[in-house]
């Protein structure tokens, strides 16, 4: 898959490039600011972009704004936003209405290479990847009571909101996929949601429910 990186720290930019190249991906460009990054995206139309939230000149949310532009102008390009800290509010802005091909992760997650690559793959193929910490914030601030869910169902709900597939949820909780499906059906019934057939429709329903 072809990837464009926007990251102002040289150390991380080189690290990410190496990591992706070693995993067999092509890094078409790796830029240090938002403007050059957007030009590179226009030139290469990559399968996915990896963007740091804070970049020069103001080091606030340039990266996030660049990511939103890519999401709107190149709908087929997956957008994975990395940040030193994740905030539910930024996630809400990023996802608003369309959690397809969008991801938002803590920078630390890069350290777990396999999981990071899996998240990037999900995003590039139209899925989503939300950091567990963001999901925890969303659950904490949910506009609706989640009290009726059992602890296990809450776990499944959290993993679903992260954008994981049934088999990934089953693997994470060390249960069979049948059990996961049962939990998911219970969740959708208890929350009064229409069950979605496809993974990303399901994520959309869950995130909408949680108040994004």
């Amino acid at each position, binding site marked *: 898959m072809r990837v464009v990186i926007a990251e102002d720290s040289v150390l991380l930019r080189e690290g990410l490039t190496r990591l992706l190249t070693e995993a067999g991906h092509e890094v078409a460009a790796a830029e240090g600011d938002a403007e050059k990054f957007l030009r590179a995206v226009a030139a290469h139309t990559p399968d996915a972009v990896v963007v740091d939230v*804070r970049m020069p000149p103001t080091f*606030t*949310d340039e990266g996030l704004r660049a990511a939103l532009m890519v999401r709107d102008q190149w709908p087929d390009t997956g957008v994975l936003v990395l940040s*030193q*800290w994740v*905030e*539910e*509010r*930024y996630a809400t802005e990023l996802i608003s209405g369309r959690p397809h091909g969008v991801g938002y992760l*803590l*920078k*630390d997650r890069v*350290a*777990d290479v396999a999981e990071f690559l899996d998240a990037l793959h999900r995003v590039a193929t139209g899925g989503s990847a939300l950091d567990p*910490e963001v999901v*925890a*914030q969303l*659950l*904490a*601030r949910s506009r609706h009571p989640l009290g009726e869910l059992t602890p296990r169902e809450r776990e499944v709900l959290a993993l679903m909101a992260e954008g994981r597939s049934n088999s990934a949820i089953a693997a994470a909780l060390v249960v069979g996929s049948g059990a996961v499906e049962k939990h998911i059906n219970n969740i959708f019934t208890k929350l009064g949601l229409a069950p979605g057939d496809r993974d990303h429709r399901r994520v959309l329903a869950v995130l909408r429910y949680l108040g994004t």
Partner: protein
Amino acid sequence: MFLLCDLVSPRTWLAMISHLAGRFLGIAIMVVVVTGLSLGFSLLVLALTGLPILGLTLRAATWCAAAERARLSLMLGVQIPAWPAEARAGYRWGIVPRWRMLTERATWGELGYGLMRLPVSAIAVTLSVAAWAAGLVALTLPLYNSLLPSGGAKVGDFVLGGTPRMTASAVIGLLVLLAAPQLTRGLASADAALSRRLLGPRRDLAARVTELEISRERVVDAAETERRRIERDLHDGAQQRLVALAMDLGRAKARFADDLDAAAGLVDQAHAQAKEALVELRNLVRGVHPPVLTERGLDAALSGLAALCPVPVEVHVDVPVRPKSSVEAVGYFMVAEALTNVAKHSRASHAKVVVEGHGYPGTLTVMISDDGVGGADVHSPGLSGLADRVSGVDGRLSVESPSGGPTIIAAELPCG
């Protein structure tokens, strides 16, 4: 209609009770102040035994002032702020007044108040009671006028009688009676204004400067304490982890040649150490000043804190206009500190954070409550640091935490 309501309104009767209470308390205060001062000054000439008596008298005047502030707040709803104890010269050995007390407005204000309480209340009681009584008497006169032994009420040598005069009397009585509550309350307002002048420090610029000096000192101290805490956290947390990580990697490097399995295990361990160091650094930064607070405001920043707390936290934020950043930071820090306490000490099963902005520039109110065991110590470093920060932006902090719970920490932060 309003005038009729005033006759039975609690405000009217509280004002009346206040006048009566002031009259009796006034006697006590006057006795204390006059006896103390005259005894103190006369013994001053004999030997220095008078000084402690004067000190005691001044202290008593301060206590009386405190009691009176409480009474005025209770009965008239008038809040008169107390002089901050730190802003006053105080006493040597706890009893001998310092010379500087003589130049303090607070000292003279309290003594003056002690002397003025009785006459002011006495006048207020006399006028109020007279108005009520005269009104009632004149209003009801037509009912019993003919029963009077003289055959009617006497004005001088003239005996009142006849329907027109009785009607006039009733009308005048009604008017006086309707005016009586206004008089009682007006006197109470005047009393409150006078008390505020004598007991209240706010208008005094010197006292305000002293207060600011003290709060600045406390803010500097709080910042210093905070810096030390950050240093300690960095040193005990992330730094130690990085040392351990470097050590594990060093050991792994040495083993690579002969024992690949052991080396792989060490690398795993180093990997875990590095990730934990990152988590610690992130949480540390979140406790100090997270970027999202600057960029998106309190509402966005508080969800991070709530999610970090092991106890379920409900967050309600309603701040239509963003306050200035120093106020936001204090509000944020307050919630951070309070939720840390909830997690550490409260044994609560549920906590609630409510942040509201009122008016513009107005005030920001922040309240954190939990259903835990209570008994929070306001002198603990965390809570006293919080009080210092709140005073740094001229806010007011209140901590209610009876043992057995619940705990409510609230602050009002002026945004202007």
